[in-house]
């Protein structure tokens, strides 16, 4: 019987989901919050993007429930702790070849020495152990098989998506308008695409295999969690700091203001990359000194990921803090705040009841805007060797490894293509969604000087 072993990042992610649900409940109840979200909902692009984001989130959540098998793994897997996604994708995870193979290939990409029956060593392209192992090798047979499988997958995916639509749409969306139709179509497309991919992935390496023969499609799916975590957890770290300090500085002014301003100016004066690098090295030193605390590879990689989020959070809270401080400065002179003060409300109460709710839209806008640049920053940081743990599946690690593959002839393009396209999908959806959110919450964008390029984007230069 498998037991649940929550990793720290799992806990954080699920916590975030809970916070999101709580927020949704609040938003449904309070009209001022509800109106902008309704505006977001009305945009067809935004709703379609939200569907895509939900699919990514679902993958990440599936990957964030870790189980430990009590029986010893017979398959030689290096760790007994697996996520639900790992279990679901068992054929992909275990279908490990010896080295590179192209998408849908039947034979390895490079030659290996094989001992022939006559006892001679020969170099040849060996047949893959798992990829297309079931089908005949001829071109026609393979194409037919691929077609049949994709058709089955498409039908299954379509059926699933349709039934989901039939169940969910009327309840969630009330009536069918243009946006709902767009969302429905997106869901159908995702269903069909996902069905085809999954149907093929069980028998073929749809995105080929990497240097040690792992399935690239599987890696790309596993990377979703890393990317999402970095995009969201960073905000979780930055948010309380920015919110408390920014609002307090704006409201109390005087010495508090000076102190907070000094604090964030100093931090943002340090070039971000150097700060991240120093902190990453610091963490390394800490882990070496406390090696016994991290016996499992997963725990180490997990802590490193969390730490990276923390570090990025610390470097990115300053810009949000500055915005919040400016807004709080403006708000404290508003009539309703004066009124509350006149009625004898205490500072804490005013902050909680009047200031924080009124700056939340800025928080939401920055959060969604920062998300995509953080996902992109991960790749750049990994290039500099200060990103996530090398043993962790992430788009940055994939791109980093693919750098060398581009110099090969014939080109090994599939790793890079898989990483870039899956990352592109997430970032594109996030960007579209963020736009809609910004338009809805802040129709006059200049008020906060929010530039579309978030400050963390500087890391990617």
């Amino acid at each position: 019987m498998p037991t649940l072993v929550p990793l720290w990042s799992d806990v954080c992610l699920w916590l975030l989901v809970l916070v999101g649900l709580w927020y949704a409940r609040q938003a449904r109840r309070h009209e001022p919050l509800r109106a902008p979200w309704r505006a977001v909902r009305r945009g067809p692009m935004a709703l379609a993007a939200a569907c895509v984001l939900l699919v990514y989130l679902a993958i990440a959540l599936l990957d964030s429930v870790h189980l430990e098998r009590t029986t010893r793994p017979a398959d030689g897997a290096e760790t007994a702790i697996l996520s639900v996604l790992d279990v679901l994708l068992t054929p992909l995870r275990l279908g490990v070849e010896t080295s590179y193979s192209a998408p849908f290939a039947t034979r390895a990409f490079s030659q290996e020495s094989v001992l022939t029956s006559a006892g001679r060593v020969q170099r040849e392209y060996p047949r893959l152990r798992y990829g297309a192992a079931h089908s005949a090798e001829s071109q026609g047979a393979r194409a037919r098989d691929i077609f049949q499988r994709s058709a089955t997958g498409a039908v299954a995916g379509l059926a699933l998506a349709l039934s989901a639509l039939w169940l969910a749409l009327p309840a969630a969306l009330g009536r069918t308008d243009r946006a709902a139709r767009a969302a429905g179509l997106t869901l159908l497309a995702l269903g069909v695409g996902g069905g085809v991919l999954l149907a093929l992935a069980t028998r073929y390496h749809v995105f080929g295999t990497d240097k040690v023969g792992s399935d690239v499609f599987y890696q790309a799916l596993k990377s979703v969690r890393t990317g999402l975590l970095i995009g969201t957890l960073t905000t979780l770290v930055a948010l309380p700091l920015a919110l408390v300090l920014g609002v307090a500085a704006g409201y109390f002014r005087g010495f508090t203001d000076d102190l907070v301003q000094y604090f964030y100016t100093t931090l943002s004066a340090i070039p971000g990359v150097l700060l991240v690098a120093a902190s990453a090295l610091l963490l390394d030193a800490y882990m070496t000194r406390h090696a016994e605390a991290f016996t499992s590879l997963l725990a180490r990689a997990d802590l490193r990921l969390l730490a990276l989020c923390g570090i990025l959070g610390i470097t990115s809270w300053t810009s949000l803090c500055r915005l919040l401080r400016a807004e709080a400065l403006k708000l404290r002179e508003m009539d309703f705040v004066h009124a509350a003060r006149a009625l004898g409300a205490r500072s804490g109460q005013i902050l909680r009841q009047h200031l924080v709710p009124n700056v939340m839209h800025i928080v939401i806008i920055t959060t969604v805007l920062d998300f995509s640049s953080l996902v992109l920053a991960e790749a750049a940081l990994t290039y500099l060797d200060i990103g996530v743990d090398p043993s962790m599946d992430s788009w940055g690690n994939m791109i980093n490894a693919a750098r060398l593959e581009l110099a090969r002839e014939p080109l090994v393009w599939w790793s890079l293509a898989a990483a870039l396209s899956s990352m592109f999908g997430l970032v594109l959806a996030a960007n579209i969604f963020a736009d809609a959110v910004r338009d809805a919450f802040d129709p006059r964008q200049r008020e906060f000087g929010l530039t579309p390029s978030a400050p963390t984007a500087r890391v990617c230069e």
Partner: protein
Amino acid sequence: MSAYLIRRLLYALPIVLGVNLLTFVLFFVVNTPDDMARMQLGERRVTAQAVALWKAERGYDRPLFWDASRSGVDQLTDTLFFTSSQRLFSFDFGRSDAGRDIGADLRQRMWPSLAIAVPVLLVELALALTWALLMAWLRGSALDVWSAIVCVAMMSCSGLFYIIGGQWLMAKLWHLVPISGYGEGLAALHFLVLPVLVGVLASLGANVRWYRALFAEELAKDYVRMAHAKGLSEPRVMFGHVLRNALIPILTGVVVLLPSLFLGALITEAFFAIPGLGSYTIEALQAQDFAIVRAMVYLGSLLYIAGLLLTDLSYVLVDPRVRLA
């Protein structure tokens, strides 16, 4: 005005001090002087004696912050932090841990960084303004919609993609520019084409969208309707009014970037083997050369403060209503 400047400069002092203290703590907790010595001396046949000598030669054998064995002010001043900060503040960067003079390197490597950053800024500004203006002008048309889609797509690509793809296409497949490298003087020109192109592409999408938003907002204002009503032609409205008014936030946004142009683009420089300050920083990080990293952080913070100051000043210049007190 001058009182304001002086006040701002005084205000910068504790910030620089704070930055310095923070980097010092961060890097010295990570890397003890012993680590640095071994890193620099290599790994073969290094004796403890050699390490001690190396430290003594660079002053790394002194205590970090506090020398209890001394008395009076010396307890504070005869320490590694105090002496090295003192030198840094007087722009004497000293020698890198590998033994080269940092100041000389900085002076030399500043130019290649600028040679990339300045053209990127200018080309980007010209392209993005033209494009955004077109979009705002033809808002709602197919051009506007498709441009928006292209922009979001461009924003969603990793910067590494542009670099790797650009090198592969332009240099490897089409033989149009050298893959990487750098030259002196005019010879640098054909090395710069690709990095500049990559730099422009990587940030074009975001900027076009922002500029378009600014223009669109300007277009929605009353005075534009007024101008139209007066019978002014569309080009005159666009260039005479909209562009001029929207330029204010654009220019202040650019000004804050100006000083940081010196620091160079980290990854672009590394990939194109351009001997600028960006690749200098990366090399120093990889070699864990603390002296260089500290000098770069110090320089970076100074430039950041300069950027803030320039922004304030530019507000005054473009908008007479703002007064600095």
